């Protein structure tokens, strides 16, 4: 849950994409399209199915965690384990829409939006018995904003001009300018036990990073590097002890192997690939043992054009290219239908998504017409359009290790050929891709993905001030109206006012097509049927993980402590 709260937008790089799929599956990010029905295919009805504590869940994880101090972690495995050990001050609800209390029992935003007053719960204790107070948050805040702390998440906290502890359970933060994404930034990144860490260099506190003391639903029990991470329910959890006694993350980097482990009972839960979901899990034997879920992930894939390139400066050309792409075809071929075409950089079905926008339809005739208007014609009859003696040809780059993107690029290449545009697909290793092409703006077009945070702010990607090297508006999109909209929307705490601004922002994006937004994939977790209490919601399935349970009669993994 943490990952996407703290990240307004996140990359989906090659080797991270699988981890992301899993994180998305486990951490439950998105709108539920369809559940597995109910658990009615479960065991005979004469056993007691009421909630019970006990049992264990074995989850598959693509990668090992690296660091369980949330502000230092960078990978989804670390964040998903850390989100069990630490709790946020507040979090998005099951609809991923409104914020609801966790460690903070309530909060007040001042009229002018400059001050936020947080009231903390008074009944929370660290897993070593010490009480949790506002001093801990103060420590966390000071640490994350300390320039020597090597964290990637400091920006939101740097906006705070004054941090003030009122009493043990109340603190106030003051901003220079109203900053709407600020509220959601008060997540578990700043929740650290002061009594254990103060005075130490957090960057080198590897003992704590590998054996953290938190206050969340689970306590870390053991961590065997590269093999498994085992957690035990925290009996003193302030929101009530989690039912499932033990969570074991088994690190199995290969999804095929994970799938075989799932079938043999070596795993209870994993994120399926589209192929596994649609072709390998439809047998009755599988369905009797596992419930499959699917919901749209909080990320999207796009084709981005380098707007500094003369080829793409003309809006008509970009619209022509978008008209030439059949998004549904890509979803069907690449995701085996397990996804949805994307129109805008928000997830369909969410509050922020502008539903009233008509997408550019797949219409090659319109493409040719638009290109002709822009001066492109096939004067030498070789099948490729040209203008002033130059042919319309360019390279589509994507990163190595992401098969979905390569397939997507290939399909696009063929569609472009049909309208007389010659595109060449090149795959480049991630580091070289970013450093030599994206950062240097030495690309024509790229197929890449962004993952979306729950706050709608997308300032870093679309504001014209964010176009220098290493910044994220690398297509160099610049539009005065968009700049104003993004700026005003992050200064307002009024949902409806923000929504209006972001709606207009989306209209402009669709009109100008700096990206062709391609698709949103679906997360496809499978969970063993002995787990009850799973309630699919727009946030996915894992948001209420502490309420999952295994009826006593069905509990099977009885690993004793240290197991």
């Amino acid at each position, binding site marked *: 849950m943490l990952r996407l709260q703290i990240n307004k937008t996140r990359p989906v790089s090659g080797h991270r994409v699988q981890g992301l799929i899993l994180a998305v599956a486990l951490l439950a990010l998105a709108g539920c399209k369809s559940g597995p029905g109910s658990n009615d295919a479960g065991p005979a009805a004469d056993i007691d199915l009421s909630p019970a504590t006990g049992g264990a869940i074995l989850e598959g994880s693509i990668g090992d965690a690296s*660091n369980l101090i949330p502000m230092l972690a960078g990978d989804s495995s670390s964040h998903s384990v850390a989100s069990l050990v630490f709790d946020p001050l507040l979090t998005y609800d099951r609809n991923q829409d409104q914020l609801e209390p966790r460690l903070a029992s309530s909060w007040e935003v001042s009229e002018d939006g400059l001050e936020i007053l947080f009231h903390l719960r008074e009944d929370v204790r660290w897993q070593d018995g010490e009480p949790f107070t506002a001093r801990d948050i103060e420590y966390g805040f000071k640490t994350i904003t300390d320039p020597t702390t090597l964290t990637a998440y400091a920006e939101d906290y740097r906006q705070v001009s004054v941090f003030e502890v009122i009493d043990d359970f109340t603190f106030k933060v003051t901003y220079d300018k109203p900053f709407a994404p600020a509220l959601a930034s008060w997540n578990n990144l700043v929740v650290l036990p002061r009594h254990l860490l103060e005075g130490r260099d957090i960057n080198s506190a590897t003992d704590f990073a590998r054996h953290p003391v938190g206050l969340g639903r689970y306590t870390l029990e053991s961590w065997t590097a590269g093999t498994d991470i085992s957690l035990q329910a925290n009996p003193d959890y302030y929101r009530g002890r989690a039912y499932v006694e033990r969570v074991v993350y088994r690190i199995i980097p290969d999804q095929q192997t994970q799938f075989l482990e799932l079938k043999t009972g070596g795993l209870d839960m994993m994120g399926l690939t589209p192929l596994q979901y649609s072709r390998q899990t439809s047998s009755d034997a599988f369905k009797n043992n596992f419930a499959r879920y699917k919901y749209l992930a909080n990320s999207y894939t796009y084709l981005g054009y380098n707007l500094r390139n003369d080829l793409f400066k003309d809006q008509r050309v970009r619209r022509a290219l978008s008209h030439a792409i059949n998004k549904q075809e890509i979803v069907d071929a690449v995701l085996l239908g397990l996804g949805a075409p994307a129109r805008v950089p928000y997830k369909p079905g969410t509050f922020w998504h502008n539903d009233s926008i008509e997408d550019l339809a797949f219409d090659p005739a319109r493409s040719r017409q638009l290109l002709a208007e822009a001066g492109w014609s096939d004067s030498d009859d070789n099948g490729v359009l040209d203008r002033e003696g130059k042919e319309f040809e360019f390279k589509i780059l994507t990163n190595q290790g992401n098969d979905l993107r390569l397939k997507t690029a290939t399909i696009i290449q063929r569609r472009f050929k049909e309208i007389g545009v010659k595109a060449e697909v090149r795959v480049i290793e991630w580091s070289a891709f970013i450093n030599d092409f994206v950062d240097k703006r030495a690309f024509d077009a790229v197929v890449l993905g962004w993952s979306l945070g729950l706050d709608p702010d997308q300032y870093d990607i679309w504001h014209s001030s964010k176009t220098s090297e290493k910044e994220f508006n690398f297509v160099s999109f610049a539009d005065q109206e968009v700049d104003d909209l993004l700026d005003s929307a992050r200064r307002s705490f009024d949902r409806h006012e923000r929504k209006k601004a972001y709606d207009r922002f989306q209209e402009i994006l669709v009109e100008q097509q700096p990206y062709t937004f391609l698709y949103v994939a679906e997360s496809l977790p499978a969970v063993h049927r002995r787990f009850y209490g799973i309630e699919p919601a727009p946030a996915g399935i894992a948001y209420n993980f502490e309420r999952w349970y295994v009826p006593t009669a069905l509990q099977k993994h009885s690993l004793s402590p240290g197991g």
Partner: protein
Amino acid sequence: MIAYLSRRLLGLVPLLLGITLISFMVIHVAPGSPMDLLTDMNPDASPELRDRLAEHWGLDEPLPVQYAMWLKRVVVGDFGNSLSRDPRPVIDKVAEALPVTLVLNLMSLCLVMAAAIPIGVYSATHPYSRSDRAATVFVFLGFAMPTFWLALLCMMLFGVELAWLPVSGLQSLDYNLLGPWGKVLDRARHLVLPVSIAAITSLAGMSRYMRSSMLEVFRQDYVTTARAKGLSERVVVYRHALRNAMLPVITLLGLSVPGLIGGSVIFETIFAIPGMGRLFYSSVMGRDYTVVMGVLVIGAVLTLLGNLLADVSYAIADPRLRRR
């Protein structure tokens, strides 16, 4: 002999320096940096974080300075800390992965020898027969088959369908609850598939080597003499021919010693084994310079020592080498 040895040892120093220098330069010149995983395409990370990380890790110094600093630490045995989000000492990380890989490779090497020698001998004693051809086809099939594919098939058959063996990993989750024999058995069951699949893929080389070496020996005069003396074929093959035919195979074995610490990424990924292959691969992908260099240096030292050992044993066997 001591003079020879010390001369050889001294000769290793510049060689090792050269290896580290080239490796260091190549990995640092490659596009990307250890900062990338955290900051690339991450709007949360401010551009100045890159600079702070670079400074923290000493990457803002010119390359020769960095190399000198690195060398200074390595000379006293300090490989530094990993430049990843898990900043533990490089030595700790290698110490976690190395035993796993070493044990796996040793066992599969033993298995290869145990299978390759009989196959080679049999093929050589029945050259161009149907069974020789069958053996050849078999070993080359193993050689040509993609490891991951064979591994997945075996995992499906023995792990899922027959449920005889665990699918992946090195131990069961309840390993710590098992008795001593239970632990041994559990480990053994987990090792069957990875060890035998690793062995099958390298069976071809060794068995073909054994076969040709054996055929070579059969052409020697002393074998003819032995046969002429009226010794039984058994004695000729196993007592006289085999011993001599084994010599080149043992040399080959010596040369494979450094390979024992190198793991295969694909193989370790499929079987979910946390070995050297995955460690090295992820460090290279993350441009975790210190870990990459640590693994390379350890590999280089072992390779050089392996070669030295082979040379020394030759020297012991052949006095002419010592005098030179």
